[in-house]
């Protein structure tokens, strides 16, 4: 029973997160301006991090947690540097 509940839930969760990533990619491809694309990239990073967390629950190992942590940190740095590039035209002054 608990195995059935967990597998059905993880299937639904991963399908929802994949659909969310597809919507982010749609906004990133279509987005009228650069700031829309950066915002969609940030949301895509978060969705990828949550997909890795759900993989960790599915496989029952903690390796995926570390990958998710690294994705979260790199996503923050990437979005900050891209926003700074939009504002100033250069990343490091």
């Amino acid at each position: 029973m608990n195995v059935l509940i967990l597998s059905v839930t993880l299937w639904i969760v991963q399908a929802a997160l994949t659909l969310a990533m597809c919507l982010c990619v749609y906004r990133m491809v279509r987005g009228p301006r650069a700031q829309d694309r950066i915002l969609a990239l940030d949301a895509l990073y978060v969705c990828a991090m949550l997909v890795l967390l759900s993989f960790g629950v599915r496989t029952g190992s903690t390796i995926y947690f570390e990958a998710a942590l690294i994705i979260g940190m790199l996503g923050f740095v990437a979005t900050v540097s891209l926003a700074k590039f939009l504002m100033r035209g250069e990343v490091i002054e």
Partner: protein
Amino acid sequence: MINFSHADVPLWAAIVGSAFLLVGAGLTLIGTFGLVRLPTFYERIHAPTLGTSWGAAGMIMGSMIIFTAASARPVFHEILIGIFVTVTTPVTLMMLGRSALYRDRSELNPGVPPKGADDLSTTDENSAETLS
């Protein structure tokens, strides 16, 4: 290093953790749906925060409950992701919104509020100009 199979998870933990996982994934999906549907950038910037606040928190709480119940000892390391995402998302989105406002003002786009006397970003832009 923790390894468990799904048969080790007790039934109550499976139900509660699954509910949290579903809430988290559903809120993330709603947030990205808003990212696609909302008309202007300044409305769109609010939508993905649904995924970074309660979307991530729901997934993390579900994962913590399942890991704790399956390995029979407290497992709290996922909360690191929650703290980090909660702290950094406002910073990134505030910088992104301010750079978008700067671009819209410099291109004189309609629908952008004018630069006011009590605007906090005026001092920062002036200092940026003097620095560069």
